[in-house]
């Protein structure tokens, strides 16, 4: 198994710890994007905290994996440990899905299929304002079931929003089954390409491949970019990997200990 880099490894550890503390699920979905979110926050996103005009926008359209983003925000010192430890607690701004009321989150999400439209609007705005800021939207493969997503795909290609990047977390699973069994998306890369996007297919759990791909994109002109990121659902915890039940399931004490030790081994 390819090892996570340090930042993504820390994200995974936080995911496991917080899910256990809060006794909640969505663990597998968060683990599958840990490397994508890790590279984005550690190496790609330009986020001077208060510069609204220059700051890149990141939208987690698959909002149910928000814990991965909270972990990144914590590691980047944008939220405190106290806030992080409030994940899913009463009165917390850190719910299962991200809310823009939390500093560091630009757009709330949770209803699948909406984030890419918000992102396309944000990218159009940046272009109109002649700002170099970029927009990254992380969607899930199951989310591509949503028809409205393809409206945004068409709009973005038509207007050549090169400052927009969609990252499709292709872990092959959705809430109630494998994507190939629920509503087949194949051939996904060809579909995005046919809609006029600049498509790159990569190993979405390989930090180096992710970083190299982002760094090679031309955000100034041409088509919007789609990163088809092939990921493993539950990546890093052997008993969760590619198992449907870990979309929702919380961990027992024994499962928690095993998960922690496996993630530690891979740091």
């Amino acid at each position, binding site marked *: 198994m390819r090892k996570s880099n340090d930042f993504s490894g820390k994200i995974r550890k936080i995911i496991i710890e917080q899910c256990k503390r809060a006794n909640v699920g969505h663990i597998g979905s968060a683990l599958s994007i840990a490397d994508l979110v890790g590279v984005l926050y550690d190496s790609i996103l330009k986020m001077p905290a208060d510069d609204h005009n220059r700051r890149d926008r990141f939208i987690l359209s698959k909002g149910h994996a928000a814990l991965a983003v909270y972990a990144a925000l914590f590691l980047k010192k944008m939220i405190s440990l106290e806030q992080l430890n409030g994940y899913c607690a009463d009165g917390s701004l850190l719910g299962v899905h991200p809310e823009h009321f939390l500093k560091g989150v630009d757009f*709330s*999400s949770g209803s699948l299929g*909406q984030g890419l*439209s*918000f992102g396309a*609007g*944000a990218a159009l*705005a940046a272009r109109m304002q002649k700002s170099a800021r970029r927009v990254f939207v992380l969607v899930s493969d199951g989310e591509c079931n949503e028809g409205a997503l393809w409206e945004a795909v068409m709009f973005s290609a038509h207007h050549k929003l090169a400052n927009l990047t969609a990252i499709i977390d292709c872990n092959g699973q959705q809430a109630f089954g494998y994507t190939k069994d629920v509503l087949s998306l194949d051939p996904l890369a060809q579909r995005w390409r046919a809609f006029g996007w600049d498509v790159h297919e990569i190993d979405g759990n390989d930090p180096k491949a992710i970083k190299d791909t982002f760094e090679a994109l031309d955000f100034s002109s041409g088509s919007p970019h789609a990163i088809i990121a092939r990921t493993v659902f539950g990546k890093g915890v052997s008993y969760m990997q590619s198992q449907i039940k870990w979309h929702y399931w919380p961990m027992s004490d024994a499962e928690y200990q095993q998960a922690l030790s496996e993630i530690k081994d891979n740091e």
Partner: protein
Amino acid sequence: MRKVFVKTLLELAQKDERIMLLTGDLGFTVLEPFRDAFPKRFFNCGVAEQNMAGIATGLAEAGFIPFFYSIVTFAVLRPYEFIRNGAILHQLPVRIVGVGGGFEYGSAGITHYGLEDIAVMRAQPGITVIAPADSAQARSAILESWNLPGPVYYRLSKDDRTVVSGLNGEFALGRAQVVRKGKDVAIISLGGISAEAAAAAEKLLPLGIDVSLVVIASVHPAPREDLARIISGHSLVFTVEEHYINGGIGSLAAEVIAENGLSARLVRLGVKQGYNGVSGSQGYMKKINGLSAEAICRAIQKSCRDDTPKVKLSRKAV
């Protein structure tokens, strides 16, 4: 109101470069003046209203004031969840412009009617809902609300000619406009159908029924205090709306009566039946749904005559 909308928007856009206009491929022969004056701030988003609402959200987050335009049902119902999770949740200055409330698209049939937009929009905290009664009021309403920090929904009519006498273009957020004071019953009407309600009031006077007419254009914030004051002055109150009977201003009036412990009886005139496939002109549809001036007249006469407790009329009804 469509023409006055575009004219007013053009004037505002000349002064404020944040204003943009998006359309879901509608507005042919209406929106061209804006498109031609500001081609870089005009986007035809195609027949994709959900995405249009999302695009508007992204634009507004960056500081723009996007107006997005379609027929009422396509502007509100199709992208409703995008509006809820986008402009409303984020409290962004997105402007939703729905044209053709009620039966205005007549023979186009139910898919083009706007009969529940007010109900679903006023259910949401954090959005201003405006339904002007005529063009002059539409202009005042746009001028008062275009720069609000949160989202606004405008329910506009295609009709550019109708004038509600006594309204004089008045509009204020959270207020109702009393365009006629009568001693007997009160009619509270929603936006575009106010002209029918006014005609009904005219017809009723010689028949011995003196009507107060109140126009609601500021649906949300609702003119609750104005309504409570007006309703408490009458024992019989009618609401008139080109909208389904539940959830619109009839429901609003019922809330005001109940919450203030008022004793007036309320008769809600609106669309009560589901669609049976029969369509026709707007006038025809209003007529068969009891919303023409004549039908409103008859309903009021009947209530005054038959319902209990009896209304004490200021003079004998004919």
